[in-house]
């Protein structure tokens, strides 16, 4: 049975259609990413799944229950990191984790969780004194302390510097190894690529693509061939010519790079021309993402 099922989900705020018929499902043990620019509707979707917001239409199922009507039983099995949420500032890290530990029937040991998120040196420090990144890691600890089957992470690394982001990724990988199902949202391409088994690209409330990061990249099969335009000759057109990006650079994209490259180099060799800065590149996931979520 899928851990999360979303079918034809819809949600409007007044006249703003924030979510327009979104469908996807998440398998147990999977790390699933909702990827999209700000305002795409990611938080709305996640908070409907968490039970905070009510949907207008569609079906959702979280661990077999409807979050709109499920009560404490579901919350015992789910951990959440909200996009914005605070912790009691005057308690210490350990006190807060211990307090939350008491809410769950089969919690993990406080020390293990504090260590997993890398806060063992801050365990006795008041929450108020933690940096933003450390507070976010405490959020992760609180999402994990109840040993949940499913964890929601809404932009868990937004505002982090690169090294803090990498630390957070390690934590998420650790959670994955523990067998947790994870639904995370992000607007960072590299985060989706590094962490998720599958991504769902959303833009303006609609699903644009669902697939593994690799399959998304493969979807745009065109390979890019570029080089400095040689003087005084007309270059054969071996692919669709696209903007080269900088002066003197000529770029073409093709779905048959072997053939195109062969034609091009044969032409050049026959004329004794050395193609300066010749490069053959695959489209990056970033390119695919930008193209998929481009505003019309």
């Amino acid at each position, binding site marked *: 049975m899928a851990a999360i099922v979303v079918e034809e989900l819809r949600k409007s705020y007044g006249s703003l259609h924030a979510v327009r018929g979104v469908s996807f499902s998440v398998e147990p043990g999977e790390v699933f990413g909702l990827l999209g620019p700000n305002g795409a509707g990611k938080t709305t979707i996640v908070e409907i799944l968490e039970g905070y917001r009510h949907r207008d239409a569609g079906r959702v199922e979280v661990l077999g229950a409807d979050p709109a009507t499920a009560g404490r039983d579901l919350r015992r099995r789910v951990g959440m990191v909200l996009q914005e*949420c605070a912790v009691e500032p*005057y308690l210490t890290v350990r006190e807060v984790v211990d307090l939350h530990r008491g809410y769950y029937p089969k919690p993990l040991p406080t020390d293990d969780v504090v260590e997993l998120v890398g806060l063992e040196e801050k365990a006795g420090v008041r929450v108020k004194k933690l940096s933003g990144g450390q507070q976010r890691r405490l959020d992760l600890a609180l999402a994990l302390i109840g040993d949940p089957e499913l964890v929601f992470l809404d932009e868990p690394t937004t505002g982090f510097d690169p090294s803090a982001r990498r630390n957070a990724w390690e934590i998420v990988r650790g959670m994955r190894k523990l067998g947790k199902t994870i639904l995370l949202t992000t607007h960072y391409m590299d985060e989706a690529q590094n962490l998720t088994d599958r991504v769902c690209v959303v833009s303006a409330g609609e699903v644009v693509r669902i697939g593994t990061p690799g399959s998304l990249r493969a979807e745009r099969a065109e390979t890019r061939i570029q080089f400095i335009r040689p003087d005084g000759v007309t270059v054969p057109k071996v692919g669709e010519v696209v903007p080269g990006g900088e002066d003197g650079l000529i770029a073409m994209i093709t779905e048959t790079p072997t053939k195109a490259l062969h034609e091009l180099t044969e032409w050049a060799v026959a004329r004794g021309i050395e193609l300066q800065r010749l490069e053959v590149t695959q489209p990056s996931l970033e390119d695919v993402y930008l193209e998929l979520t481009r505003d019309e």
Partner: protein
Amino acid sequence: MSDATIALAQVRAEQRSFWRNPAAAFFGFGFPIMFLLIFGTIFKGDKACIDGSYGAQGQCVGGALVPYNTFFVPAMAAWGVITSCFVNLAATISIRRDSGLLKRLRGTPLSLPAFVVGIVGSALIAALIVVALTAIVGHIFYGAPWPVHWLPAVASVLLGGVVFCVLGLLITVLIPNADAAPAVVNFSYLPILFISGFFFSFNNTVLQDIAKVFPVYWFKEAMLTAFGAKPSSSGWNGQDLLVLLIWGVVGLAVTLRFFRWESRRV
């Protein structure tokens, strides 16, 4: 863990937060004690006219004259309960609502009753301490008598405390964001505090009648009676407690209906 154990852990955590937060502790305790020291000193040796008002020649009309601090100590104790419960909860809950803390809690299996027992229980502890402190300071420095009727005193503090906690939660419905909390809270009760005669008696039946609509007035009455500032054989005054109870029950119903766990979107 059972719900009772969790509720107890909540009370402990709330108490810790309260005492570690200088602002919360100050608002809970600072003002009533400070006014006790100031007014207690200024009016030491004066008389207060209880339940009456001063006539043209300065005589106490329709009431009884007692030493000022016999009246003032239970009045400040009542104020302390109001600050520890009403003011304290209104402020901390609006801050927690804005910061997303309430929202987070709602995503955990913590039950609503356990959460409420935590905040109310902690506020009641603070209220009992501020009342004790007021009574001790009043007795030692200003010669006010000890509370005459112990059981009614404790019962009034507990009932009044719970009612003012409920009203503190209720007023958060009217507080748009945490920055506005002090203004809304002070505006909602400080004028009533004055017209309810917490500091001195005065001669204006209209204002006195207005005061009698609100629980602040009746709570002060209950405390004066229990402390022995008003003549009473038992220390109980059913009417005071009944009005408080009605405010509490109605307040609870309105709170349950309109309470917001998340800040309004700006």
